[in-house]
């Protein structure tokens, strides 16, 4: 990273009221929750010291906001009690203290009882990586997708978040929302239609397919665009649903391009790429697969943008990996490498 100014969110201030040089932008989570409590009598928002994001809602319907302090596990179980009493609680949590800290409450109280709690894990991945190893949130997909009855989604843009919240609002079971930071590029002009368990095609391509989740989608798309002038045609799928998973889309990509690169701001263990590998393996489908994520090792500590650069979560690094992937694929098939 060349810019010396750390671009980080102060999580204790509303997104649109950030002081200093941090990023400013629309407060999409806060706006959407404020809209929900205005429209529905059954939505409540619970926070474990994450109330800044819902300042608007607190003004609008203070009784629908339940602050529980820095007590994440209690917050999840309290949400379970509210859900068992007819509410649809949204639990706001910080990614690093979300799924990994509350795994048991999520499994035992929410998932086992199929209660309609929405667990919103903001600042996932490396978003809080400046604060130390305690603040990396790179295991949550692996944890969440192993829990029966838990739906796992990761929006790739603001409109995707809105669409996922709205399309799942009546789902009877719990849903884990993995919210990345850095979703600055709107991939969808309007909130898209998300069908449960289906990936959304973002870009068509014939040489390779990027399957991204969360911030992996805009990164993969930017990489695909970088490669276009080189004559490489790379398709991009938005794996907004991590559970249920779109096995068919994976198999279709394997058949159509035979070269798949997964992109996620998550450990390579147990995440999106591992899930794609399971699908290919279970179906005995041979395809070239590369898993672009965070290595299973102690991760560096630093400003998120610097960490993304460090670990290759950039369009340039992803494009480089795609070039190699396509070259390998062509070599395996005995096709001359180079542009199409």
């Amino acid at each position, binding site marked *: 990273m060349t810019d010396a100014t750390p671009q980080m969110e102060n999580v204790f201030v509303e997104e649109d009221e950030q002081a200093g040089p941090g990023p400013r932008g629309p407060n999409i989570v806060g706006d959407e929750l404020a809209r929900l409590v205005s429209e529905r009598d059954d939505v409540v928002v619970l926070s474990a010291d994450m109330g800044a994001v819902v300042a608007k809602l607190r003004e609008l319907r203070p009784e629908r906001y339940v602050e529980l302090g820095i007590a994440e596990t209690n917050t999840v179980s309290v949400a379970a009690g509210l859900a*068992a009493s007819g509410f649809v609680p949204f639990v706001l949590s910080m990614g690093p203290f979300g799924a990994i800290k509350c795994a048991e409450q999520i499994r035992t109280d929410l998932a086992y009882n199929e209660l309609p709690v929405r667990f919103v894990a903001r600042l996932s991945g490396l978003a809080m990586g400046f604060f130390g190893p305690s603040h990396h949130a790179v295991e949550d997909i692996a944890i969440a997708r192993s829990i029966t009855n838990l739906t796992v989604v990761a929006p790739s843009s603001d409109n995707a978040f809105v669409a996922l919240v709205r399309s799942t609002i009546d789902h009877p079971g719990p849903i884990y929302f993995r919210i990345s930071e850095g979703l600055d590029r709107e991939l969808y002009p309007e909130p898209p239609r998300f069908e449960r368990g289906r990936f959304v095609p973002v870009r068509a391509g014939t040489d390779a397919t990027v399957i991204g989740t969360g911030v992996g989608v805009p990164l993969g798309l930017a990489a695909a665009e970088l490669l276009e002038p080189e004559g490489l045609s790379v398709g991009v799928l938005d794996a907004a649903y991590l559970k249920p998973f779109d096995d068919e889309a994976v198999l279709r990509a394997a058949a159509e391009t035979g070269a798949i690169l997964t992109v996620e701001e998550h450990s390579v263990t147990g995440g999106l790429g591992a899930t794609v590998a399971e699908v290919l393996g279970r179906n005995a489908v041979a395809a070239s697969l590369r898993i672009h994520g965070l290595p299973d090792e102690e991760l560096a500590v630093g400003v998120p943008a610097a960490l993304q650069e460090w670990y290759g979560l950039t369009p340039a690094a992803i494009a480089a990996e795609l070039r190699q992937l396509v070259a390998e694929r062509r070599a395996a098939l005995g096709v001359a490498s180079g542009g199409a």
Partner: protein
Amino acid sequence: MTALSADGKTAVLERGREATPEELARRADWIRLQTVQLIDRAGLGHYSSTFSCAELFSVLYYRALRLNPNDPGWGDRDRFLLGKGHVATGLWPVLADLGYFPASYMESFGQIGSPLSDHPNMRTAPGIDFSSGSLGHNLSVGVGIALAGRLHGRDYRTFVLTGDGELQEGQVWEAIMSASHYGLGNLVAIVDANGFSGGGPTSKAMNIEPLASRFEAFGWTAQEVDGHDVEALSRTFDALPDPGSDRPVCIVARTMKGKGSKMMEESPQAWHLGLLAPVQRDQVVREIEARLP
């Protein structure tokens, strides 16, 4: 005392129902006998922890709770959460007796697919307000249910029965803190303070006393009661503050683990989890039956 529900369709068992102390005490022993039978059927179970709260089950379900067995989801019912879920064998016969489900459900206890399990499952057993099994969760869940009562403007109470060892879980104290923060006078925690956990005397493993003053320091009203004295329990539940009041209530029920069986009272630890051999079982049953008319 029964009344009709607001829609006039179902019979409501009101709070403070008439029941003589003799009836309630007999009911507690009946619960013990039923527990022995259920565990015998399953091949394993928690005897002594169930025996310690038999009087609590009796007074709650036959006097104190506002219930509607024909409509288990009735919105105004008092909620009862079994934090110490390992004593569900004491609850199944009560729920069957009150008509939540046919007594035949108990025949499948211990088998794969049975709606009744060692720890209660709200999705399979009518009358269970929330599942349990992992200690330390249910008081938090009770806070959520009590908050929901406030938001819905309903006057039900939420009772959570915890073990004393369960209070070693940190999440319980998060729940205790949040209950007083939100002024949940509609929440009642009952501690079955039998003094033992799975591994030995509770406070030898990790001291949890003095319980009442700890709850009070967290903003609750706390009181101690003999958990086997059905008259004292009845008075305590009858005198609970209005659900609209602003201090949650903790009832520290001092109990004896294994109460009602001399063999278990003498070695409560041995009968935390186990199976009585036929000779032992007959001896326990004879001892309890001798107290019944």
